[in-house]
């Protein structure tokens, strides 16, 4: 590989696209032959945390009725406290902007501590029903712990756990009623709570952007909000189509604008994909409505042109995105 990269740099230099000084710098840097194991070692740390916590999880699950559960519980508590102790010791304390640790190692310890405390809470809830029969609380407390850790230690991974926990909590508190009512109704209710949660997350990003609180978290919140709202509305396009179509178009417009502001390619792409799926579903519904099977030949003939037009439109959208965000072009 190296030979062609050097050649390419040389060609760029010959074409006067980079300066002689830069060319020398690049050559010198390449001569150092740096072999960075940064990502690999980080991935191994992550793997070790994942292995350890799932091992502990299974261990506890299997010994849940045995006499040793007090021992296991106290051991788990001890390990969790140890992890948290090291995390707090090495952290720079709470900061409103992006902070993190000097050594990425501690990031993974935060992750381990959070996962272990979630397991701990789940365990005491199961064994002692500490939160009584209010099962929602058993999800809410790990969620709160995760949110605290995410914000205190500035950890995006833990933040995703927290948001999923929140979604689970909302799914939970809605669902017992789902058993009482019929299935269709409950799905609709769940969709509405999903949309509501999405709206709540968006509101939170707007607020935290205003008070400059961890602005780099907004991307994660928005990603969740986009998927929650879009999937829920698309699911509802079949039953309650007018309402869902309005909601989907409003949210798509909002996310389209936001993707320009951040700027974020993935938000941009997913927004367009969801909007396109929604549009096609509506078109499909319309075709069924007008009994299109009577003239299916025409539709079949028109389909390539429809797709070509959509491709041209998509390319146009991407070009527009690139024009506005010349620095973060989609390449």
């Amino acid at each position: 590989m190296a030979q062609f990269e050097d050649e390419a740099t040389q060609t760029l230099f010959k074409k006067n696209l980079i300066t002689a000084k830069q060319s020398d710098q690049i050559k010198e840097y390449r001569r150092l032959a740096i072999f960075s194991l940064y990502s690999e070692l980080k991935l191994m740390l992550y793997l070790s945390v994942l292995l350890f916590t799932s091992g502990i999880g299974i261990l506890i699950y299997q010994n849940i009725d045995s006499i040793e559960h007090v021992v296991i519980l106290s051991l788990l508590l001890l390990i969790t406290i140890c992890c948290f102790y090291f995390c707090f010791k090495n952290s720079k304390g709470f900061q409103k902007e992006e902070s993190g640790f000097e050594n990425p190692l501690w990031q993974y310890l935060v992750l381990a501590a959070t996962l272990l405390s979630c397991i701990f809470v789940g365990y005491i809830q199961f064994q002692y029903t500490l939160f009584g029969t209010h099962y929602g609380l058993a999800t809410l407390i790990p969620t709160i712990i995760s949110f605290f850790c995410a914000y205190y230690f500035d950890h995006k991974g833990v933040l995703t756990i927290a948001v999923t926990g929140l979604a689970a909590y909302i799914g939970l508190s809605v669902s017992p009623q789902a058993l009482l009512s019929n299935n269709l109704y409950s799905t609709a209710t769940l969709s509405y709570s999903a949309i509501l949660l999405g709206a709540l997350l968006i509101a939170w990003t707007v607020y935290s952007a205003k008070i400059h609180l961890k602005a780099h978290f907004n991307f994660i919140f928005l990603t969740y909000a986009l998927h929650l709202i879009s999937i829920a509305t698309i699911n509802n396009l079949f039953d309650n189509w007018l309402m869902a179509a309005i909601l989907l178009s409003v949210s798509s417009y909002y996310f389209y604008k936001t993707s320009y502001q951040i700027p974020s390619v993935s938000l941009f792409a997913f927004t367009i994909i969801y909007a396109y799926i929604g549009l096609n579903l509506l078109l499909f519904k319309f075709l069924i409505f007008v009994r299109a099977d009577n003239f299916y030949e025409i539709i079949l003939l028109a389909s390539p042109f429809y797709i070509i037009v959509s491709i041209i439109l998509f390319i146009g959208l991407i070009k527009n995105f690139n024009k506005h965000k010349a620095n973060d072009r989609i390449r």
Partner: protein
Amino acid sequence: MIAYDKNLLKNTFLVTEAKALEKARFITKEQFQNAVKALPALKSQHNILIRSGFFILGVFLYSSVSGVLALFGLVNVDLAIGLVYLFAAIGLVGSELLARQKYYGFGLDDAFILGTQFALGIAVTFSTEGNILVITGTVTIAALMMYLRYVHLPSMVVFFLALTATLAYAVFDLLAYGKAILPFAMMLFAVGMYVAGVQLLKKLTEPFYHNGILLIRNFSLVLFYLSGNYFVVRELSAAMADTYYDYSPEIPLSWFFWCFTFIIPVLYIVFALQNKNRMLLWIGFLAFCFSIFSFRNYHHVLPTEFALTLGGLFLFAFTYFSIKKIKNNATGFTFKPDRFDNSNALLNVETLIIASTFDLKPAIKAEESPMEFGDGGFSGGGSGGSF
């Protein structure tokens, strides 16, 4: 041979290099933009998400064009086989047109190029009534031709897989002792491909086929490991012997395959570290994980939970000390991030993998405390599509 204008293709490589330099903060954004303006290049999508989006649109386009033609062909059933060949021809025409329009790795061209190979495979299946050797052979040749013409990396993957399948099937079916020597034949084939790849790399003067040959080299390393892996050999030979009840029978030369299973990954990792070959390091690491899986599949030395917990602890300690050791190196091995983030695409996906595994968390939690189990469905469903 190459469908694209060579200068444009070269410029595409140069722009990629300029982007890498810009990312590594060696040149400024303005310089990069000047380079983009000065070097007219082919139309590509480097963002995997958008490229897959266009790939799906391309598949729609391909199938709708084919559908229109099928509409006319429906009248005559005898033409059905010819129709599938026609689909392949449409794919070829589409690929050629897109190449003329300077689409290179855009997503649309991927759909047509891969679609052609797929349609051709189906067509040959129909006309030979399922002669596997002919089918895989045809696909092999088609994929290689299309790779050479469109410099299309995914075609190289198809080529390698189809070639492997062809050879494996030929050895298995045509030779008298084919079944017994299959692992060794595959090993030999892998070594041959690797050597061929190395030789070709040495002779290469233009960068176009560089990545494709690298791909062949790495795939043959994976194939070499898999063809001697105890688990693969034992399960495959049991599956092919048609005497597969509950438990696959022990294979002859098991000591050899066990040694192979464990020595090869270690050798890969050692060589990777010696030669600073990142891809080989990844292959070695994954192979090592697979070896552990193979071993645990037959010998249950430790209960799963202890194995996981202890494995996690050991891995953490190992990584901790490795980081400590190489943390401040300025050359060679180091824990400092490389300015050239060119390691491989796998690493870029890393954050995504991490985020999606974190997402599974509520589902795992639900298993631990059965009360929450009732509604794991929603959280799982909601999060499943989230990334």
